[in-house]
């Protein structure tokens, strides 16, 4: 895509990507995304003019509420509680899933034995297990951590398995022709090739884990962002709700970018010709 000094008319501005016309300079300006966000905030303000803060808080009211929440550490405590559960469950779930995924990818019999289990359980949303999590693990931390473990396990295991299945045979042959045994092939080719897939599985599982922890905290907790959202309902504090929602979006985005960065860093040369990190 190239831009020229030509003046932007409406026709060039709206030219599709596949058009032969040059892209208007305006479209390539770094300010455009901020204009988009600006329009959104403007619409948000205009709509909020018609409603009370207890129904539809304005951007200004939301910012004021965010400042108030930040000043009394309440927000930090709830965010910390949610993140702690997420990371603990996520680390445990991945630690369990990676060996299982390798087993499924490497040994046909293991895969066939595990398949009925993974194919069935991965369609049961983690939150549907909240009742059993509460019965088995009580209302404390362990029930929430259990749900996140469950959530992370299937996504990470299945992506690990897919990674093993997609190891390039020529890479293995290359190592073997240089005299590498099975163990060498595993350490030098299979593991590094699977790493990007594992990280992709973790990235996808992270998004779902955010949704699960919020629902679990709404249903059974007395801390965390989900709890903050649901308890604010009783006082009609919709501004608090909006702050928590925006914070969740920001945290989710941050986690996603971290995983993408990690994938690129750790797996650079091992990415297949396409893009293993694509969503």
């Amino acid at each position, binding site marked *: 895509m190239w831009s020229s000094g030509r003046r932007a008319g409406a026709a060039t501005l709206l030219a599709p*990507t596949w058009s*032969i016309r040059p892209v208007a300079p305006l479209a*390539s300006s770094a300010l455009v995304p901020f204009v988009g966000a600006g329009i959104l905030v403007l619409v948000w303000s205009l709509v909020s003019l018609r409603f009370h803060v207890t129904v539809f808080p304005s951007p200004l009211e939301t910012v004021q509420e965010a400042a108030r929440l930040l000043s009394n550490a309440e927000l930090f405590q709830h965010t910390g509680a949610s993140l702690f559960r997420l990371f603990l469950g996520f680390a445990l779930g991945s630690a369990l899933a990676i060996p299982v995924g390798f087993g499924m990818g490497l040994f046909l019999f293991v895969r066939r034995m595990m398949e009925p289990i993974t194919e069935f359980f991965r369609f049961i*949303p983690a939150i549907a297990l909240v*009742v059993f999590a509460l019965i088995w693990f009580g209302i404390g931390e362990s029930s929430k951590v259990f749900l996140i473990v469950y959530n992370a396990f299937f996504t990470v295991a299945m992506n690990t398995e897919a990674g093993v*299945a997609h190891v390039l045979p020529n890479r293995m042959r290359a190592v073997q022709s240089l005299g590498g045994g099975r163990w060498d092939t595993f350490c030098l080719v299979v593991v590094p090739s699977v790493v990007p897939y594992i990280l992709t599985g973790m990235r996808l599982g992270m998004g779902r884990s955010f*949704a699960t922890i919020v629902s679990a905290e709404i249903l059974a907790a007395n801390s965390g962002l989900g709890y903050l959202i649901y308890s604010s309902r009783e006082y009609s504090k919709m501004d608090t709700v909006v702050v928590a929602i925006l914070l*969740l979006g*920001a945290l989710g985005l941050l986690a996603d970018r971290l995983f993408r960065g990690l994938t690129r860093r750790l797996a650079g040369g091992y990415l297949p010709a396409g893009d293993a990190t694509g969503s």
Partner: protein
Amino acid sequence: MRRAAWKVSELALPYGLTVLLLVSLWEFASRRINPLFFPGPTTVWRSFLALASGDLAAHVGVSLVRILTGFLLGSLVGIPLGLLMGGIPVIRRLLDGTVEFFRFIPPIAMIVLAVVWFGTGEASKVFLIIFSTVFLVTVNTEDGVYHVVRNRIRAVQAMGAGPWDVFRLVILPSAVPHALTGMRIAMGNAFSTIVSAEMIVADRGIGFLLQDSRLFLRTGHIFVALVALGLLGFATDRVFRILIARFGGEYVVVR
């Protein structure tokens, strides 16, 4: 596809072994644990019979209608939006950041706002499903348009095609498998969202059945609801896989 090549006789042994192992483990465990905590196969079967003759179908139907309504509305918004964003640079740059941000908001976090805005009835659930669907479908459709093979466009243009022909003959068919993939992922999320939403505020649906059985500690009923969810999710996922294979055809990106 790897699995298509497998013969039934090859699968029967490992699959049968796993299922047998699981069920016997389940039966064994349930005999040593209080059935209130962990109902055995017989308890679950009795619950299934009770629910099947009662309102299991009604709850499942209510949840499915909510999911399908929201899912169709969300896709109806998401696909054109994705096509526009993928095709027109200004629109992409205007909306990309915003869509990308909203994509990471867990839909269930919107439940309090949904109830305040749309009440406790159907509208709030449909809104949540639209919210779970629209951004994923938009992002995937956009991705599909954006990654169209340039030479295909050039080939059509060399034959004298205008922008509309390029869109109709190349862009749209290349974007369809991506849009369907977005819809398949969105469908999984929609299930998760509707169950949470129904557990929190509803008087019907699978989520309500779970929550209601929890209050009365009818753990057998909970197991039945979980199995129903697993089967529904599996079935819808297969439908999308078939659709992708059918309509994606030669346009599917080989991975």
